[in-house]
């Protein structure tokens, strides 16, 4: 017996960690070194895992986020203790709200110094607790193997999300006879996958009786890989569908069953159908967030609501639900399809929606220019991963980026993180190096993480950054127009940055576009160049070139 124990080789915690990353098929890590995580770097160096050096830890975690969304498996990022860890916080919150699987690794100061306010010490676990699905301080070598196995499992099952592991430097440095066979033990973690049969039958019964049923769907369809089942279900049931912001690209905008997007930035028709006309709303893979629902007391007020979600806590959180179904969307929809194939709902064709034109967002403030830019982008007939930042351009992109080969948009839906788009696009590239990436930004958002452009240059990424430049914070201006009687403050950038010079300074290529006719050709040239490019669309001058004024376009 003692022979067997002696045979287990003693290795450092860092080596064990990297070994487990490889077992979990991690091919890429986004990170930034520091004193406390250097033992991990020493092992990564020899591992064959591709490490991408960001220029700020926030960049690294958004890269891991973009990677995870495209690769459909956990993105991994690595930061040091103290400021390294705190710089991850925004990215963790972003992944938490959009249910993106991330395993974040942080170095921590040596365990015997914890609690002494040592150099670069923060209470990483308590700081990140509310913005992670789970986190753990790996204080004892014997906990390391189960902690890492659990992290990957928790991040990528049930409702996906970020998991953070904090490793004191001494645990990383010290040799220990690690047992890689030791299993994770998670007695309190059992996500529900199969839906309750009684609830499913009740839902079908209610749909059968419905005269004007509507399906409302969100990003959960992607997260469960349930697109095929979803499309099969709605075609079988002949129910019109409405999407949320996170549901881009699941169904074609031209599909006869597609009505539009709900919410503050949605289509009037979609809001009207859900809130006034529907007698049954079947919500699938959406947390019925406030930007979608708007006024809770008006939401689906004439309808019985069926809600299918993997997370039981999302059901009934803000809207009372008549029939909750907890389970994995792919599983539950397969079950429903099977039942409908045996006995159909009896709906031959979708109910008729009157006045079903999709009116779009306000046309104020150079909106038509944005529309043209996104329509031109959508003309490019090849696979592209498109990310967005946050602001007006994000909402317009959501309506006008319609090419299914460019969708879903990689977008920060829940947290609304400005500065997300560029690093997320870089991460997306590492997940799928056959497909060029495009990052859509406003000038405000771009300047929040613009340093990461150098990562695209270093790694020769076919990235095109499209900046919709209004030299200000456009959405802030819009809100000050609509909600603050036009009292404008703090939304203008008084000094204009030359983004083309910035691109060149970093070793990329820059394009200035000031007229309408150059829009399409420049986008095509930039994407075809297959080098990191920035296109600075001067919205005001483009508007003028089209004989339109920036502030009074079609309003």
């Amino acid at each position: 017996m003692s022979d067997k124990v002696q045979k287990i080789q003693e290795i450092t915690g860092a080596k064990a960690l990297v070994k487990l990353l490889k077992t979990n098929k991690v091919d890429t890590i986004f990170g930034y070194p520091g004193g406390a995580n250097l033992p991990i770097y020493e092992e990564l160096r020899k591992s064959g895992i591709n490490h991408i050096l960001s220029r700020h830890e926030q960049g690294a975690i958004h890269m891991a986020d973009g990677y995870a969304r495209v690769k459909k498996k956990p993105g991994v990022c690595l930061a040091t203790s103290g400021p390294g860890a705190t710089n991850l916080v925004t990215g963790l919150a972003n992944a938490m709200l959009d249910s993106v699987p991330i395993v974040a690794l942080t170095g921590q100061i040596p365990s015997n110094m914890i609690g002494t306010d040592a150099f670069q010490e923060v209470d990483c676990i308590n700081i990140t607790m509310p913005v992670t699905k789970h986190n753990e301080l790996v204080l004892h070598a014997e906990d390391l193997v189960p902690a890492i196995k659990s992290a990957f499992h928790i991040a990528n099952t049930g409702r996906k999300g970020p998991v953070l592991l904090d490793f004191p430097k001494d645990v990383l440095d010290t040799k220990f006879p690690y047992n890689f066979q030791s299993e994770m033990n998670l007695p309190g973690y059992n996500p529900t996958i199969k839906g309750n049969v009684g609830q499913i039958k009740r839902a079908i019964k209610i749909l059968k009786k419905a005269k004007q049923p509507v399906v409302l769907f969100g990003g959960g369809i992607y997260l469960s890989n349930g697109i095929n089942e979803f499309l099969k279900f709605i075609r079988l049931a002949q129910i019109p569908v409405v999407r949320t912001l996170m549901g881009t690209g699941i169904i074609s905008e031209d599909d006869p069953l597609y009505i539009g997007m709900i919410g503050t930035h949605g289509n009037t028709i979609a809001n009207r159908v859900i809130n006034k006309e529907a007698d049954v709303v079947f919500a699938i893979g959406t947390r019925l967030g406030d930007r979608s629902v708007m006024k809770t007391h008006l939401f689906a007020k004439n309808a019985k609501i069926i809600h299918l979600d993997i997370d039981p806590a999302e059901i009934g959180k803000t809207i009372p639900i008549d029939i909750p179904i907890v389970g994995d969307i792919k599983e539950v929809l397969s079950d429903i399809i099977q039942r409908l194939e045996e006995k159909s709902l009896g709906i031959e064709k979708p109910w008729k929606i009157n006045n079903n034109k999709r009116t779009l967002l306000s046309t104020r403030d150079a909106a038509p220019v944005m529309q043209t830019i996104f329509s031109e982008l959508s003309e490019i007939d090849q696979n592209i991963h498109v990310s967005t930042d946050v602001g007006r351009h994000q909402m317009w992109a959501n309506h006008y980026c319609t090419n299914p080969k460019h969708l879903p948009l990689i977008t920060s839906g829940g947290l609304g993180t400005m500065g997300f788009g560029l690093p997320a696009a870089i991460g997306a590239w590492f997940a799928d190096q056959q497909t060029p990436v495009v990052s859509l930004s406003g000038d405000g958002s771009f300047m929040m993480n613009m340093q990461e452009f150098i990562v695209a240059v270093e790694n020769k990424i076919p990235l095109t950054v499209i900046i919709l430049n209004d030299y200000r914070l456009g959405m802030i201006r819009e809100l000050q127009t609509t909600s603050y009687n036009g009292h404008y403050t703090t939304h203008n950038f008084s000094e204009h940055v030359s983004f083309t010079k910035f691109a060149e300074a970093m070793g990329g290529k820059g394009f200035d576009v000031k007229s309408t006719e150059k829009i399409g050709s420049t986008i095509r040239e930039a994407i075809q160049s297959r080098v990191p490019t920035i296109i600075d669309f001067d919205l005001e001058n483009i508007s003028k070139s089209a004989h339109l004024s920036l502030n009074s376009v079609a309003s």
Partner: protein
Amino acid sequence: MDQHQTITLEVEDKPGVLSRISTLFSRRGYNIESLTVGHTHIPGVSRFTIVVTGDEAILEQIRKQSQKLIHVLKTENLDKSQAVMREFAIAKLKYSGEHIPKINELVDLYGARMLDSRNEVLIVEFSGTEEKIEMVFKDLKQFKVLESIRTGKLAMRTGQ
């Protein structure tokens, strides 16, 4: 309607589990009236009894959010009609000879226990329902109470 609701959580006895639960409650704006935690008969398993203010929908939301914590094993909403609920209290009283009959009367009435008595200072222990502990504290006012403390609620479902 807002009222006191009781929820019990069975948790893995891991470092930081109290922090996870209190972080969740404060982050989601749930008001804790009382919180009691201790070991159970199962090694490695602790149990929280938490009393919160809110309606039934909030209670259910609290239960579901708590259940999502990886170290939480089991959650249960408890109703007075299907559960026993107890509190425990100790108090330190300053007394003199003339108080003794009254003190003895209270001890008998509430089934209290004397834990310590020296130099005209005694410590008594009470346990019972929240209402009973309220009454005890009211009755103790006739003496000079030097210190007192009561636990939060311990609750357990009746039957199997």
